[in-house]
Every structure is written in C-alpha cells, then in structure tokens.
C-alpha cells in the first residue's frame, strides 16, 4: 500500500519505538501534523522550538532513548539551532525533523525558507535533505541508527513539504548499510592486556569518568572495576551519576569548580584511567602542566578523542561497557594503600565548604537540602548554567546514572527548564528539579506553560541572586568588581509569574523555610517555582582560574 510522506514518518517513528515527540507546528509541516493528529505517538506542544530540542535532549538523557523534535521551516528550524548545538556538544542522541519549502522552491528565498542543513552543518552528527519520498523510510532508519550508535549525537532530517505529501510504497528497512559509517567493534585484547598491566604497576592511579560511562550504561561495571582495584574515581560534570558520589572511593567532580582533592589526585597521579571523558579544558586547566607524571589510559568510542588534547599512552577504542567487563577480568590489582591515605588527607584538609550565616540564605545550603530530600527518591535534577549549575554539581551528590542532567559543552542558559519537561515526560514517576538561576530561567521560562498544560509536577528552584552570578564572579575576581551588565535591577516577581502561568509560586528567604518549601513543592501535583532569595555575592569555590594549572585553585 502506498502512504504519503507524512504517514511514512509517523509509521517509521512507531517502528523506532518512539512514544513521544516534542514540537511546534507551522505551514511547512502542516501535512505532517495532520497525520500526527491520528497517530498513537504523543506530541508535546512546546512554546518555543528551542524548548522542543532541549526537551528531546532532556528526555534522551533521562531515559537513554533517542529524543525527537519537530519544527516548521525557516524560523521554526532556526529556533532549534541552539538545542541541536547543545546535543552535539554533549553527545546526546536526538533526531530533529524540520519542515522545508517545496523542492522546486528551494534556493529562491521562498517564504520561510532557511538552509537548515547548511546552518547546522557543524553541529550535527549527520543531516539529510530528503529529495525523494522513496528514500524517506530508509533515511529515517539511517538517522536513528546514526544518532544512537557509536558516539551519540543529533541528526537532522529536512523535509520539503511536497515530500510529505507525495506517496510511496512503505517498507521499513530493518537495517541500513553504510559505506562510510562504522562503529568501533571489539577493542583489541592486546591493548586491554597492556592496560591491565599498567594498572597493576600504578601506585597513584585515578579513574576519570565521564558522560560516556552513562551513555554506555556502564555504571555497574565502573563500580565493580573501581572496587576491585581500589582506585579512586573522579567524575566530570557530565559524568555525574556514573559513580555514586557518596562512595568512599569517590572524589566528586574534577576541574575548574571541582573538589580540591579531585584536582590534587589527578594532578599528582601516576596513571589516569579516562573512561568516556574527553579532557575538556574545564577539566584539564592549563594543558602543559596537566598531570605531569601520569600515564594515560583512555577508553573512548570515538577515535578522534584519543590524543585530541592530552597525550594518551594506552588507547582503548570502543564501547565502555564491554571494555570494562574485560578489564575487570584481566586487571592486576595495584597497591593503592598509601595513595588512598594521601587522598583521605586531602579530603580532610580541603573539603568543599561554605559558611552559613545568620539571616542569609546560602545557595549551597539550598542544594544540600534538595539533595537530602530527594536522595532516596527516584529523582532527576536538571540545571541551568552559571553558579547555580556549579553549586548543584558540587553539593548535589549524584548516586545513579541519568539523574543529573546539565548543559556541559555548550553551557546553554535556558536548558534546564525544557530539559526538565523532557525528563518528566520520559520518567513520569520521578521527582524532577530544575536548579535554576534568575538569569537562565528567563531565557526559556515560556516552557512553564508547557509544564502546566501537561500537568508536569516539575520543581524549579531559582537560586536568585539578582545577578548573572557566574559572570559577576569573574568580574569580581578579574575585573576589579566592575559589574558591567551583570546586575538585574528589576526582576519579575517569580511567584506571580508562576501564578500567571497557572503554576504554584513560593518564595524562600530564610534557611529554616527551605525544607518545608521543598516538601510542599514535592507534594504539589503541579509545576512549582520556588524563588530562593540567596546571598547575592556568594562565589563558587574552589575555582581554577581559566588557563591556570589544576593545582592553582583559589578559595579552598
């Protein structure tokens, strides 16, 4: 039987097991929306296409399934761009469908025409402009395959309107073959053997775990590996949840705002075992002084990550999970007793700390309370970007994978709320918190309407300092407190804003109100904003100034 392009898309999505898509309609995708109307696939109507892309991203990170978003041609498509870039930087599998003008109208500056495959070229894993309806099903199959295998990433499919109307015989290919796309297979056993020996010989080894552990679903293996070898584990921002941060072997986060003991451990180690982590500059600090005495084992599925920033002695190319399984079998257990003692000393000497002062609300305290109240629950934390994000990274001890979702590589203010929408849709039973800043929340606050429409009980905790706090902190430290354009003299009343949207608003100004407010928020079956009025000029410490060595931390 022949189906229209739009019907083929709906069917293909069903074949791919897609239950929900995030989107926003418009002229070029009218035929698609007409078919979605009858489709069993749930459509979540966002309020801005950026929200659709971030929601698909949050959904993917929270569930491990690919996220799907849809936008119309022209402005709809360009509104997706930030969200696509975000997913690209953090290696998140999303598939973006964009409407396009009719094939014959392409290239003539037609109404609402934008060259979205061109615009997104450097920020997609791959993209397609469909020119033949007979290729549509195979294209969608290919897109899902590419987005979800190897190093995950966003794939865009641009759909000329006439393609969605034209008809073709529908047959969904069970698989597609590529001449130019191969996912690395089994890692070379000789390399694993070499790594196993190097680990046995190490005296000051450290595991540096990243987002790849989570996308590989290898947290169990990581734990077994660390416990067997007695090697301490530090994680990146995107690696939060790959290893329980309350574990005695955990060092918490490494890097610019990592713990002092994680930064010391990495800097003085004799062996770094990088697992699904990409030696980002927020992590390494100054490269030429980074971990000067360490040999490096690097497990990564993307060969281009090996040696990109840091010299690697033993590369293990492939999926984390099977490699760790083999390593667990083969590894020689090193003697780390002295090293662990040294680390205990660092932990005692340089703990994460802040001071609670009478009458002021500290953001760290708020995060600690959110952690206390959700630690034993099925909870997902998303964050915005800035100080709020870093306090969340430091004080919210992630225990399980896919529970801490943050925009790392792009650092997109406005990510947290739509990501929370996606996470809550994907995990309806979870308690979801967006840890937000007063600046970031204003970038995508319209998605509160989405949360209200779909009865999503997400909790938005605004750490309100009436500053673009992270930038202000840099101005304080490096620009002589010249607060150029970082202060908000007039903010909306976030309580009233919540109410205007049909959500619940609360304001907290004192420490003792924090706990009751959080309890009330969790018990409220609607979206809630809590406006935490915090100490305005609180800073995030420790901090490695940009471009400095990892050991040159201030404020610890």
């Amino acid at each position, binding site marked *: 039987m022949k189906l229209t392009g739009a019907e083929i898309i709906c069917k293909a999505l069903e074949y791919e097991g897609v239950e929900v898509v995030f989107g926003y309609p418009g002229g070029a995708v009218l035929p698609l929306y007409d078919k979605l109307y009858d489709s069993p696939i749930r459509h979540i109507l966002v309020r801005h296409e950026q929200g659709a892309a971030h929601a698909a991203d949050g959904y993917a990170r929270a569930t491990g399934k690919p996220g799907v978003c849809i936008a119309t041609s022209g402005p709809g498509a360009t509104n997706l761009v930030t969200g696509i870039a975000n997913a690209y930087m953090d290696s998140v599998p999303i598939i973006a469908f964009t409407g396009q003008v009719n094939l014959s109208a392409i290239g003539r500056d037609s109404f609402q025409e934008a060259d979205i495959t061109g615009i997104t070229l*450097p920020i997609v*894993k791959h993209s397609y402009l469909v020119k033949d309806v007979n290729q549509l099903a195979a294209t969608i199959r290919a897109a899902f395959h590419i987005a979800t295998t190897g190093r995950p990433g966003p794939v865009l499919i641009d759909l000329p309107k006439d393609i969605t109307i034209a008809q073709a015989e529908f047959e969904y290919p069970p698989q597609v073959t590529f*001449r130019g796309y191969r996912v690395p297979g089994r890692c070379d056993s000789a390399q694993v053997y070499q790594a196993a020996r190097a680990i046995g010989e190490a005296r000051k080894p450290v595991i540096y775990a990243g987002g790849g552990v989570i996308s590989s679903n290898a947290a169990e293996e990581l734990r077994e590996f660390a416990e067997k070898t007695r090697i301490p584990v530090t994680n990146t921002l995107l690696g939060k949840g790959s290893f329980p941060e309350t574990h005695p072997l955990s060092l918490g986060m490494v890097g610019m705002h990592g713990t002092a003991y994680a930064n010391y451990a990495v800097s003085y180690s004799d062996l770094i075992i990088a697992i699904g982590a990409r030696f980002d500059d927020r992590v390494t600090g100054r490269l030429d002084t980074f971990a000067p005495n360490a040999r490096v084992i690097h497990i990564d599925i993307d060969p*281009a990550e090996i*040696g*990109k920033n840091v010299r690697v002695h033993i590369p293990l190319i492939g999926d984390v999970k099977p490699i760790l399984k083999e390593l667990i079998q083969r590894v020689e257990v090193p003697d780390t007793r002295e090293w662990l003692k040294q680390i205990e000393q660092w932990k005692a000497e340089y703990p994460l700390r802040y001071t609670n002062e009478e009458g002021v609300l500290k953001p760290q305290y708020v995060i600690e309370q959110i952690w206390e109240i959700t630690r034993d629950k099925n909870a997902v934390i998303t964050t915005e970007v800035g100080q709020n994000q870093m306090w969340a990274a430091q004080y919210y001890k992630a225990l399980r994978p896919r529970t801490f979702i943050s925009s790392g590589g792009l650092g997109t203010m406005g990510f947290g709320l739509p990501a929370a929408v996606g996470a809550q849709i994907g995990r309806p039973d979870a308690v979801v918190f967006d840890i937000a800043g007063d600046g970031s929340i204003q970038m995508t606050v319209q998605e509160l309407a989405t949360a209200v429409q779909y009865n999503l009980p997400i909790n938005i905790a605004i750490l309100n300092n009436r500053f673009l706090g992270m930038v202000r902190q840099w101005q304080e430290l490096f620009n002589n407190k010249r607060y150029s354009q970082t202060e908000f003299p007039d903010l909306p009343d976030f309580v009233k804003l919540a109410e205007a949207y049909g959500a619940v608003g609360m304001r907290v100004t004192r420490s003792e109100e924090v706990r009751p407010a959080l309890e009330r928020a969790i018990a409220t079956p609607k979206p809630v904003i809590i406006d935490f009025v915090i100490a305005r000029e609180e800073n995030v410490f420790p901090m490695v100034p940009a471009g400095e060595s990892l050991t040159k931390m201030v404020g610890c």
Partner: protein
Amino acid sequence: MRHTLAVLVENQPGVLTRVAGLFSRRGYNIESLAVGETHEPTISRMTIVVDGDDLVIEQVVKQLNKLIDVIDVQDVTQAEYVDRELVLIKVNAEPSIRGEIMQIVDIFRARIVDIGYNTLIIECTGDEGKIRAIEKSLKPFGILELVRTGKIAMVRGQKYEED
C-alpha cells in the same frame, strides 16, 4: 609539514561542503582540494593537501573519518605515489618575445593552447615542483592570469619482485 590525503566520499550533493566546513571549523589549513568522480560513479575522490604537524594531521584524518559520507581516508604522503596538477597560465607575449616563451614551453613539455593578440595561454601538467618551476620561468614576462586544478595523487602499483 604538508600531507596529501586521498579521500573517497559518497558522490552526493553537500559532501564537499561537509568536508570544506570541517576544515574551516576545526581551523585546519587546506592548501588545495581537487575532486571528481571515480570509476565507480557513486563514489568521488578528493585529493586534499593540508599543512600541519603530525598531531594536526592525525586529527584531520580522524575527523574526516567521522563524516558519514566519507568512505575512506588515506594519507599517501609517505607512500610512493604519482601526483599531478594542471595549470593554465596566460602570459604577456608580444610577438617579439614569443620565441623565448616557446622555448620555455618546450623545456617543460607544456603546450600553447591559445594565441591572442598580445598573449599566450600555456597549459602545463606535472608534479608540484614542475608547476612551480614553469611559473617562475614565465614570471619575468608578466603573468596575467593563472589557474590551477589542485593536486591529484595516486599510490603507485605494486612492483614486480626483482630477482
């Protein structure tokens, strides 16, 4: 150091943009790029000359390999290969000096492909060294226009064993 890469790609619209975009986005220096269909019409071959140290070249090759439309990348720099480039050069050539120019053309086994009132167009094929040399030799006459195809390269066939 300059490296010569032989890159097989899907013969599809947009592939050239992806490759060129990769180079500009990651800050690699393309010195030349030549592209054309192979004997298998669904595959095109690009010859890319790129400048960079070993680390940069390693990244270039790996990043190229990540493009879905790139089928194979070979760095032929260290291999025994034949390379050719074609250049067209329009020189000032008043009748009185044409003889001198024609001598140069002969020496390089180049060809004259157009004679104008005061100009000649010379076609020359060869490896990099030869192209550079003919350009240098013609320069004193005044080069009015010059166009190069970019280098193409092919690894030599396996040689018969000598006994």
